[in-house]
Every structure is written in C-alpha cells, then in structure tokens.
C-alpha cells in the first residue's frame, strides 16, 4: 500500500497510532504467553475502536445526509405541528451553534410558489 498519509500536510495532521505495541518475541527458552496475550488484547482493542468508529461514521453520515431530506415530513402537518417545518441541527460536533435548514422538497415547493406568483403577476400585466 502507498504510504501516502505522510506526504501531504493535511493528511499527516490526521496520523493516529494504534494501541497495538510491537513486542519482539524471541523463541529461545520459554514462550512468554503474557506478551502474546497482551498483543492479542491490544489488537482486539484496535479493531473494536475501528469498528465503533466506522459504525458511528455511518450514523453521522446518515444524520448529515438526512438533514436536507426529511422525507418523513412529506406527510401533512396537523394542527399541533410547528408552522413551516424547520429542523435545527448542530453542524459539527465541535460547534454548538445551531443552524436552521430547509428540506430540499420544501425548497422546491417554495420555488414553485414563487414561480406561480410570478406567473400570476405576468398574466395580470398582460
């Protein structure tokens, strides 16, 4: 594999070392099971961390993507719902600021409303 992580400053900022420690074994005399077990445990720890990260990565990707597509909101809102649906979302875990995002379908709908109104005005002038 290419060792490309180190060749780019942006990428090299992300370097992270695994928990696994390379302990050199020498099979002269008895075999040290403690070291081998430690290595196995560290390896499992690393794989578990990676597994959890990839899982949370998938979740955050879903969350971020769903921001602009609230398909469940394609159902009518009933009386108790907040007028003109908006979603508040924290853009990144590092930032606490909240932004308000309009669903793509709502945006399409608003554009349609604008276009209808322009049409009405145009026809009125004619």
């Amino acid at each position, binding site marked *: 594999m290419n060792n490309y*992580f180190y060749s780019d400053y942006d990428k090299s900022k992300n370097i992270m070392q695994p928990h696994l420690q390379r302990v050199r074994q020498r099979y002269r005399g008895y075999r040290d099971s403690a070291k081998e077990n430690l290595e196995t445990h560290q390896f499992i720890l*690393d794989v578990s961390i990676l597994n959890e990260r990839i899982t949370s990565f998938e979740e955050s990707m879903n969350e971020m993507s769903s921001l602009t597509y609230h398909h469940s909101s394609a159902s009518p809102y009933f009386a108790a719902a907040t007028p003109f649906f908006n979603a508040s979302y924290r853009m990144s875990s590092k930032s606490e600021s909240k932004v308000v*995002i309009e669903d793509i379908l709502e945006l399409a709908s608003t*554009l349609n409303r604008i276009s209808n109104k322009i049409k009405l005005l145009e026809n009125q002038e004619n």
Partner: protein
Amino acid sequence: MAEPIYTQRRTAQYSGNHSSTEYNKRVEENYQDLVYLYNKYNVIDTKLDQLFSRVMTDHIFLSNAVKDSMDRLKALEATEKIMSLYSYSQLTYNPGSLNGSSLAVPASEQLTFDSIYNYATLPVVSNASFSVLKMYNSVGEQIIPSFFETKVEPLNSIDAPGALIDTTAPYYSLYDRYDRVWKRSVIVDNPTETGALMYFYVKVPSNAVDRKVNSIHLSPYPVNSVDIFSIHYTQASNPRLTSEDSWKPLNSTALYNDDVNAIGQVPPGGWVNAVNSDTIVNSAPLCFNVASLQFENKPITAFRIGMRQRNYIKENNKYIYTYGLSDLDIKVNRYMNTGRAYFRFTAPQDQLIFKVNNVTPKMYNVPLSLTELAFNSRVLYPTSANDLSTIPQSGSSTVFVEITLNKLQDDTVPMLSDLIINYE
C-alpha cells in the same frame, strides 16, 4: 479501488509458529494495517466533515437566496397593492380576541396545512386517516408490502425496450428515507429534443380498494426537472396496468380548462381543446385530492402517471436522462366537513393597511362557480384597544383574514394553495 493489506496469509503447521522472525513479521504487518486503517478513517472523516460543511453552508445560503426572491416578489406585489401567502408562518389559529371573546380555533376545526405540497385544507381526522402504501411493523420500521404493484412502460425511442437503463426499484419511492429514491436513468449515445418518456403505473392495493382512496402525493425526482404530462386513473376491477385498462384523466371535468394560472395546480392530461398545455414542466411535489371521482361506488383501482425528462447529464460521452420519484403515497384521509384558520398579512415596510377590498382564494380543485360554497372569509383589523374588529380602522401594519373551508356535496375537499388580498 481498495489497496491490498499488509498482513500476509500464513499457514502455521506442527503446533503453531516456531519462528520468532515470522511471528514478529506478522505483528509488524498487523501494526501497519492498523495504522493505515486508523488514518484512512481519519482522512475520510475530515473530508466528509469539510464536504458536508460546504454543502450545508451552500444549502443554507441558497435557501436564503430563495427567501430573498420571495421578499422581492412581495415588494413587486406591494406595488400592485396586493399581498398573498409567502410562507405558512402566516397561518395562525389564535389571532387574539374580538369583543371580549376569544377567536381561537378549537383543535377539531383547525385547517391542516402542508408546506411541502403547498396547500391548506380541511382538518384531517388523523386517527382515521392512513396510507394504503406505506406500512410499518410493530417497532416502527418501514416495510414494503408484498402487494405493492407497479409497472413502467417506456414511451419513446430513448426510453424504449432494449435501451440501456440504470434503475433502482420503484418501491424505493415509498421509503421515508433520503437515501432511497426510485430513479430510472436512460443512457444514450445521442440526445433528443423530446427527452425520455414513460408511463408509471401504480395499483391501489386490493385490500384498500373498498376504503376509497382520496389522495395521491408524488415528488418527482430530481426535483424541479421532471415534466408530468398526465395523471390518469382507472376503475377497472382487476387492472392489468396496461393501456387497455380504460384510463380517465384525474382532471376528468377539465377544471380550469386553458387557464395558464392553473398549470401545475390541476392534474395534467385533462384539458380539452385547450390552446395551452396543462403539462407540469419541471414539476415540484404534487398532491391531488380525488374524492369526487369515487362516485357510483366504483373505487379507483390504479393510477397512471406520464413522466418526461428533457434534461440530461453528459458523462463519459453518454447522455443520461434521469427521472423517477422520491416520494409516492396514496392515502385514505378522513376530513371534517368544515375548518377554520387565520392568515396574517403584514404591510410592506413604512406602509399601513387601511382596508382590505378583496380576498381571492386559489383553490384549483374547486370550480369557480362553487367557490362561495367552499370558501368564506372575513377580515379582522387590530384596534387601538388591542382588540380585533371587522370594521376597518385608521391603518395598521397587520391584518388577519379568517378563512373557513367547507366540504362540497360531491365530497370535494377544497385545497387552498394561495390567498390574495387587495388592500388600500
């Protein structure tokens, strides 16, 4: 393409590994793989974070640009001394009081509104209303019913049998998920002016037929790029989803025939001898109420939607026409016979509203001759005593228009898509 990993396959024999060199080499390879995976994860995480930040930021400011366009339109309307609905935040159920009595609308009489499909309508009895296509299991997960039946019929030389098609399953249009859309991409060597055309058939599940569906929702995909040239229905008892099923236009009474303002508001394919086409060009999400079609106890058994994509994306010297649906639903909605709400109209900056001369509803599923039966309104002016009065006052920045919608005799449920007031 994924690169090969460092760790090599080894086959230890005779009670395991006897070579420390081999053992150490394997640990080293494991370590290198871990380093690679950790860092690959970090790089992707950073890239995604940056990408989404950019997409979200652009999305927010594009939304702002749309809002700005609406504000400018509002200003243009103001020069004509008219105002209309710009956002459903204008809707309220409690504008204040009139002569000491509260004007609040009781929950059972509050109009339902939908900001995606752009209409206000009669109060929906939510616990008696349901979808006949969207199903959920006992833990709330969406499932696709086995009886969901659709068919795609290509209509022209581009989207024709034998054409190169890249498609997802039509049932993807049922999912309430952003990552599931039904898209049908037709890949051709040369573009044509007509674009790609097809009929999409969807059957009303037979177990729902007796319940009389009365509402169809669809969101063409991609947004604002697909033309909907017809929507038909059939009452054939066992539709085969072919042209043999005696299809009738959803706009069977040719409502608002040849009225250009109604294009996009009435189901296309129903106008007769019209100079203008009722095709919805670059369609937004659509919703139509079909209650009045279910006369003579003959329920709707299937729908047919005519779709056209004139826009293509050029990729690797191929022309890709993509169309489909990101949302589809057929519902049995129960409505109250009447409902009320208030819409707030705020005068442009530095102006006052002295009197509202006229209130015009836009309800394209109600014939003009029946508008008075389906719609009533009264204007409420704020008074100096923080009250509301039906008598015009000496000018105010805000007025409320109370509207009442009524179901028609043929079960038509009025769908109010806009409200225009003329003021002085």
